[in-house]
């Protein structure tokens, strides 16, 4: 069953068409990859389906209902968790409070003691390396990414949108992250990830879509897409050392 169905999504900014007639489904329980060169419209597409932007045309169906144009907070409460390309913490709240915000407002089913419990659990779940009392403004980039992830999970999402979560991680950290994402998926959360790091994509994703100049140019399982001549040509380039 598809948890997310995009059909004919188009988003224009003035004269520029950032996303043009994009259609694909994300199946429940899979890890779905969205790749493409810079400026291809990946983040815009993500914003359209997370409720930050309203598409000019097309519909978004999430979890069986039409959610086109619903605001981001509504989407979150419906079960859509997300992380940002550049992490966005609440700088003057502690790490725990950061996660508490999402547990309190992101999951309508959670009440009372359970909220604090959820927040603590999520920090443990992502193996957050520092004290929960640390102020978010004192964290480094990698820790902020992890905090973003914990916060996204605290709203008990059915679908997780990850925007370049792996950017800037070392190979060692990358392996940890891959394991963590797999564990999240195994716990029943569907993942849609936008990523540049091909190794992670190829390793994790069941299926891939490739976006270029706002249009889908390839679609399918990782091996097929990686082998697609158009993709290699347009996206990977010739002399790139993988």
């Amino acid at each position: 069953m598809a948890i997310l169905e995009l059909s004919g999504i188009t988003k224009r900014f003035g004269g520029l068409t950032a996303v043009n007639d994009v259609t694909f489904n994300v199946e429940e329980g899979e890890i779905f990859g969205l790749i493409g060169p810079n400026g291809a419209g990946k983040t815009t597409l993500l914003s359209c389906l997370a409720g930050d932007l309203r598409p000019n045309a097309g519909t978004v169906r999430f979890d069986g209902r039409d959610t086109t144009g619903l605001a981001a907070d509504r989407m979150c409460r419906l079960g859509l968790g997300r992380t940002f390309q550049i992490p966005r913490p609440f700088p003057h709240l502690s790490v725990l409070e950061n996660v508490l915000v999402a547990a309190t407002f992101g999951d309508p089913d959670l009440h009372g003691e359970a909220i604090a419990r959820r927040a603590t659990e999520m920090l443990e779940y992502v193996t957050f390396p520092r004290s929960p009392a640390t102020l978010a403004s004192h964290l480094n980039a990698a820790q902020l990414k992890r905090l973003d992830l914990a916060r996204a999970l605290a709203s008990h999402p059915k679908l997780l949108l990850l925007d370049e979560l792996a950017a800037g991680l070392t190979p060692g950290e990358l392996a940890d992250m891959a394991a963590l994402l797999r564990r999240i998926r195994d716990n029943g959360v569907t993942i849609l990830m936008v990523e540049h790091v091909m190794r992670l994509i190829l390793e994790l994703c069941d299926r891939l879509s490739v976006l270029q100049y706002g249009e889908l140019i390839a679609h399918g399982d990782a091996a097929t897409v990686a082998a697609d001549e158009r993709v290699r040509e347009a996206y990977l380039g010739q002399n790139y050392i993988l």
Partner: protein
Amino acid sequence: MLVRHRRRIALLGVLVVALVLPYIPPFTGEDYRRWLVGAAFMAAQAVAFDFTAGYINIVNFGFAAFVGLGAYTSGILAVDFGISPWIGMVAGGTVSGFVGLLTGALTLRLRGIYAAVMAWFVGLALMGLIRNVPDITRGSLGLAVPSLLESSENLPYYYVIMAMLIVTFAVLAWVIRSRYGLAFRAIGQNLAAARASGINPTRYLVINFVLSCAFAGWIGGFYAHYYGILTPDVMLTSHTVEVLAIAYIGGRGSLWGAAVIAFPLSIGVEFLKVQFSTLPGVHLVLYGLLLIVVMIYKPGGFAAVVRGLESWLIRSRPGDTATEAPPAS
């Protein structure tokens, strides 16, 4: 846990001091008691102001206009309809809250300085409106308003305004400790992340504005029936600056900082004014300088100084390892 318990006791202590203050010389004098009324009036306003400025990070630069709107509502109800000031004050709060709702909705899409200036313009427009409908408000002719109490003593008024300060503080502090407070702070610090965490910013922003403005209007009603005369000048920007100065010197985002510092500050200003009566305006110069020095050297205000002292005391007493307990749970 111990820390928070002690904190409550300390605040209660301050409250008790404030309540018995009119019986301690020289505050037994009517003139000092009037200063106390003025101080408590400023404190209540500053608390309501900080509720917006310190949490959702929007400075309501038209604050005085909301105070004035409440005052005028209550005053007009009393003068033209003979409605009891007690009810009028609540009505004033309601009207200010309603206009706060509209202003909150207006400023929704704006951040930082734009929202502050937008609120300022709303305030200026309100003042202009009051000024230009003299048939209703008497404009600059001044609206004479009946008193709240029979007595012309300051003491009962002091306890009325103290009660209003306590209610304002208690209600707003309670809201801050609830999930609403968490939402306010989240919105104030990162709007996009707050949305992505399931917070509907419209809702909380408007709730915050409505509450703050409603209390401002209610407190404004007290102004009307204490001084007995209203002119559009109550809505002047300079009055907002006075409240803002107290809130900031008290420390943004603490509520209690503003409430506590209002007393020494506004009484101190009156005191200076008497001391320097030969040089009218010196007290304002000193006040301005204090504001400048605080902004440059202690932007966290009084609350930050206290927190610094506190953590210094805690550190210097190793036995008392009070870990920072997570709030709002």
